[in-house]
């Protein structure tokens, strides 16, 4: 499925070549080459994988990684919670029965806040799929220790986190480490082909756009009497900003990122409005149920972004762009269109039989590692994360947020050195509800 016979033959001979020449070049190069730049030369060696964050998505990403390459092995796992890790391991063991790809010894199953580093130490490739609040510290450590990385979006929940990821992204490039970010639309033909059409000047220059993630909302984890406040927030992480960053970031980043990607620039400012009208119960923590943001780009283009978690309202997860000569559209079923201003199709592409982008991103990552190439998604991942955070700053504060000022913000949401005795950064009020951001009053930087 992944490697048609033809490709694997070429790969094999290439690997043999590298293997044969490695001794020679290694012997000559070793004294002058810093150790860190050798770390990523893997070729035909078995790649050891560590999974950091064992939820449904992390387990899915591990599944895709293990399917992406023949010579890989999951050897370590880390999660804050033992039950999550065990259930994840159970599913992976079942999925890879009959292979030797899942081999996580008891001593390599790490639980708690310091688990991530211990698991990463054992691996060549790491999968970072905890709640996004922890991503910057995990990514920084992975880069410092020379790992190839798959990390889920978003890559931070606050601006200091974004800066940490940007700095580490630079270092990763220098060290020639592969970093794939789970903004999987970049690996989806629907988007790649549509952008090719736009680059071929089919609709002229993009001047405006609308991007949407309007849906019913996501899961809620009920508070259990035995849980500490910190454990409750970690389990029900979607509703706490230090962990999730609100749904404008956690989910809608996908569509905002498409705007950045298609315009090939990042916004200079954002302003917008939002609130919490329908989903108001205390089980929904502190996040809004709707945001509407206007992003202005250096070229003058303006992108309207809307995201909503309200049951019974219109669902729409898509992007539309107006160019000087026509309009580009995507839809959820995988199709892409270009239309002229009379509404006629200039271009139409059905994508329902396209390869699964969640698999493609891992196929590309491992092929790149094997071929000594470098994928560097982290800088864009950080900047699209920053774009969505600016949107949140705009809706929470009701003020105009400029990129140049916002990127300097020192407002930290995620505490350093957490352990199970730490007080979480937000606490419930007496009635069990949480402080809700209030436009005009809330300080965002």
């Amino acid at each position, binding site marked *: 499925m992944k490697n048609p016979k033809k490709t694997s033959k070429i790969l094999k001979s290439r690997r043999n070549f590298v293997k044969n020449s490695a001794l020679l070049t290694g012997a000559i190069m070793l004294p002058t080459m810093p150790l860190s730049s050798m770390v990523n030369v893997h070729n035909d060696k078995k790649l050891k994988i560590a999974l950091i964050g064992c939820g*449904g998505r992390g*387990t899915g990403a591990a599944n895709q990684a293990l399917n992406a390459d023949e010579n890989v092995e999951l050897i370590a796992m880390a999660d804050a919670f033992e039950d999550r890790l065990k259930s994840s391991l159970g599913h992976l063991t079942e999925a890879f029965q009959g292979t030797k790809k899942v081999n996580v010894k008891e001593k390599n199953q790490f639980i708690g806040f310091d688990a991530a580093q211990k698991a990463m130490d054992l691996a060549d490739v790491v999968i970072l799929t905890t709640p996004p609040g922890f991503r910057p510290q995990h990514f920084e450590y992975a880069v410092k220790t020379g790992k190839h990385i798959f990390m889920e979006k978003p890559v931070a929940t606050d601006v200091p986190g974004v800066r940490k990821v940007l700095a580490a992204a630079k270092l990763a490039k220098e060290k020639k480490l592969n970093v794939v970010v789970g903004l999987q639309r970049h690996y989806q033909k629907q988007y790649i082909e549509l952008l090719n059409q736009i680059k071929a000047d089919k609709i002229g220059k993009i001047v405006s756009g609308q991007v949407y993630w309007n*849906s019913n909302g*996501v899961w809620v984890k*009920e508070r259990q009497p035995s849980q500490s406040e910190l454990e409750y927030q970690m389990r029900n992480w979607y509703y706490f900003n230090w962990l999730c960053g609100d749904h404008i970031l956690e*989910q809608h980043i996908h569509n905002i990122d498409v705007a950045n990607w298609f315009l090939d620039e990042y916004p200079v400012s954002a302003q917008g409005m939002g609130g919490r009208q329908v989903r108001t119960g205390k089980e929904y923590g502190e996040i809004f149920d709707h945001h509407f943001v206007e992003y202005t780009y250096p070229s003058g283009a303006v992108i309207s972004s809307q995201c909503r978690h309200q*049951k*019974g309202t219109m669902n729409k997860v898509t992007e539309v762009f107006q160019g000087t000569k026509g309009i580009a559209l995507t839809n959820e079923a995988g199709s892409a269109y270009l239309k002229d201003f009379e509404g006629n199709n200039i271009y139409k592409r059905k994508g329902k039989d396209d390869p699964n982008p969640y698999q493609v991103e891992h196929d590309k990552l491992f092929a790149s590692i094997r071929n000594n190439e470098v994928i560097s998604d982290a800088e864009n991942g950080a900047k699209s994360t920053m774009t969505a955070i600016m949107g949140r700053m705009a809706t929470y504060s009701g003020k105009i947020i400029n990129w140049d000022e916002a990127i300097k913000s020192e407002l930290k949401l995620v505490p350093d050195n957490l352990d199970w005795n730490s007080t979480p950064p937000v606490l419930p009020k007496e009635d069990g509800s949480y402080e809700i951001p209030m436009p005009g009053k809330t300080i965002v930087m």
Partner: protein
Amino acid sequence: MNLKFITTLLLLTLFLNGTSQKNPLKDYKQSISGSELSIDMVAIPSGEFKMGSSINEDEKPKHTVKVNSFWMAKYEITWDVYYLYLNREIDNVKNTNPKREINTDIDAISGATVPYIDMSLGMGTNGYPVANVTHLAASKFCEWLSAKTGFFYRLPTEAEWEYACRAGTETKYYFGDDVSKLGEYAWYEVNSKGRYQKGGQKKPNPFGLYDMHGNMAELTLDQYNPDAYKKYNKKVANNPLEVPTKEYPHSVRGGSWDDDSDMLRSASRYKSNPNWKKRDPQLPKSKWWHTDAPFLGFRIVRVKSPSEKEYEKYWGKAIPRKK
């Protein structure tokens, strides 16, 4: 109207009159306490029919099937109705129907998870048929609706589905064999503009059921077995059912907005497959949602309640409810 069609209508009228005496069932509207929504149920008389065709291997042989009377939903189940189950906000509103035939504990019934992505794929939810649901999800919806209303609802068996679709006809479609007329009766590849449509806009079948051909392909209760009909070569099948025990494949009937005319035939059989969860990025993949089956929906039937021991056969294994 051509002669053949008129003849068919005449025959149908006879057929329906002939069976109506045996059939005390009446059409009704199933209200759902706590909601303004209701489900139109059409009475289907008991009878005998020729199931299958000589077209595809899995439709052979054409054989005689006896079916007990039942009620079938006039339309494919909508998102609006399905959301009542998904959201579970009206469970506590008591049903005032005194004629409850079953008693099950609604609190014990597992709920479907809320999906991360928009499962309507932007094709609309308000008034549109539900899509991308799994066999388990459709079955548990039936269990929930039964607990809620006190009547026994489940997915139709393949035999019930085809009997209801044919409504006495033996032609390829319930309106005859002329494919050029299909657009008057069904949404399919040719006229759907690449999306599902609101139910009930096309002409119904002689029983008064809408969208049996096209719009959503419909899940049936049966495990798909290509050789299922071979067992009945020489004998009459009495309310046959291939009891579902595995997650795949299930028999899917009627064809969809995304299918060509052949898939829409009364006898056409299609099967569910794991590829319909292709783009679910999680492991384990959702039990409750497909990600790649925007053409897949269902309708329900009501029958006399079986014994409690048999519930599992029709609703699947009990799954502990997580809140």
